[in-house]
């Protein structure tokens, strides 16, 4: 890309000399903040991962020791497994329900505006508002769900139910964003395509299978990719709903990193977790992109 641009620049008539004043004035404020609070910490994370450091003082370089410990750390692998489990429980449902709510909303006639607001409002709530509400709704003794189903289920304290319950809350909380993307995708399918299909005798599910689904695929691929990364970065809901329990059965990677850094004050080891985590996310996103683009052609 840069090669193409530099050739076009060469072919251009002679450029006026750069006036640096405005360039510096306009870019400097952003660059200072960006370097100080983004690039510098990013480099620091990598550096710290090779050190034995506490939360307040940076210690000596210890080579790959943190990474060696990490690869042999059963707690880390367990947290990675829990993160993957949460992703399995959320990526497909959030994509499917996002698509379904978008299609139903679009076909909803007069309900359309209300429906869009209803599905989207949870997404604009702070995470702690969502979790407070659901802790109350799913309260074991006084909650409305258990009252209606006449049970005493401890949703967030049962090792088998805790993660699915967190996943369900997450679906409720965030599906609105995916719905929005799908609504925009549906908007881009020309009406004539549907009319032509109808003339050809396509009905109901056939229209979805042969028109909507393929036309919507770029949106679906985008949603799947965004959702996988978002699901892997799970922290707040788990932390607030279960605290990683019961018996660490819902402790995800970012919570393990948080515990390591801020409870055990082991900044070096926590940074190693962050580095590995970043690589895992990057690889996953790339793999998924490859896979989805192949499915498209």
């Amino acid at each position, binding site marked *: 890309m840069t090669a193409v641009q530099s050739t076009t620049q060469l072919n251009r008539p002679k*450029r006026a000399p750069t006036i640096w004043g*405005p360039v510096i004035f306009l870019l400097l*404020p952003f660059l200072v903040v960006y370097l100080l609070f983004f690039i510098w910490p990013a480099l620091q*994370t990598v550096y710290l991962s090779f050190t034995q450091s506490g939360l*307040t003082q940076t210690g000596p370089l210890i080579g790959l020791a943190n990474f060696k410990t990490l690869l042999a750390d059963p707690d880390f692998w367990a947290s990675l497994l829990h993160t993957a489990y949460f992703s399995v429980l959320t990526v497909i449902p959030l994509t499917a329900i996002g698509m379904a*709510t978008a299609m139903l909303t679009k076909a909803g006639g007069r309900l359309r505006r209300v429906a869009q607001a209803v599905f989207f409002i949870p997404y604009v709530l702070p995470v702690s*508002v969502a979790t407070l509400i659901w802790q109350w*709704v799913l309260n074991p003794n006084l909650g409305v769900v258990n009252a209606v189903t006449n049970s005493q289920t401890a949703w967030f304290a049962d090792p088998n139910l805790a993660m699915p319950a967190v996943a369900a809350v997450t679906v409720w909380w965030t599906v609105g964003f995916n719905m929005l*993307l799908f609504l925009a995708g549906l908007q881009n399918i020309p009406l004539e395509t549907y009319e032509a299909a109808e003339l050809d005798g396509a009905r109901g599910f056939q229209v979805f299978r042969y028109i909507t689904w393929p036309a919507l695929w770029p949106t679906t691929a985008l949603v799947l990719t965004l959702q996988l990364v978002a699901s892997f970065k799970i922290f707040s809901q788990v932390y607030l709903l279960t605290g990683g329990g019961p018996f660490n059965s819902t402790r995800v990677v970012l919570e393990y990193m948080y515990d390591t850094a801020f409870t055990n004050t082991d900044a070096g080891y926590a940074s190693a977790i962050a580095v590995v985590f970043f690589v895992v996310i990057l690889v996953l996103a790339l793999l998924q992109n490859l896979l989805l683009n192949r499915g498209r052609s």
Partner: protein
Amino acid sequence: MMAARQSVWAAVLGIMALLILMAIWVAPLLWATLTAVKPELQAAAQPIVWLPSPVTFENFTSVLTTGNLPRWYGNSVASSLIITVFTLVLSAMAAYAFSQLTFPGRNLLFLFSLVGFMLPFEALLVPLYKLMNNLHALNTLAGIILPQLVSPIAIFVFRQFFDQVPKEFREAAVMDGASELRIMWGIYVPLSANIIWAIAIVTFIGAWNNFLWPFIVTNSPEQMTIPVGLTQVQSAYGLHYAQTMAIAILGGLPVILAYLLFQRRVTEGFLSASGLKG
């Protein structure tokens, strides 16, 4: 004839499915609201008391007058507004430079600015905490605000919009001897007003809702923002379910209102931020 009947059935089924889903999505919010307007004893009664009698706003007044809720509101309003204004100004300036000025290394620097897209903020928590500790900014408003001023997405979106402004406008203004800042402020910003508003509202909602960073950088209750403070209510207000729901509703109200008032802008903002529109 068959086909027409079939599509009527499909439409009816669709509406029914929609209504059921809407009911599921509304129910928790409705139940939280009903709980918040009940007297405490009714909220925790067994068997369940479905409807409040009488409806009371006592829970709202009591949480607004005791405890730290007003402070959290203040901190949230202040930090979110400052973050929104600074993010917009920094991003618009940078985007204008990337869009309209020519200088060596421009494309490289633009790509470098977008690296932030890919770095998960979560991976920066530890060094940012150390940095804030060194700057003595833990438990301060500045500490909450500073790392939230960078928005590569805003720069990306603004640049796209500035690129679409016809070049003649700028050329004419340059001939008249206007400074770059004036051209940007007088021509490019007004012409992109819609998208700037959209990004402003989305930035505000994002800053208001940010949990992770304020949670890391504050631990004294007076300095917390709403989303962080809400995690303290069980210890601060005790196990009062009706009051807790009143607090939850008050914590979500500003963003719900912002969304309902500016629904189209919010939609537009989120879509352009995701790269789907623009």
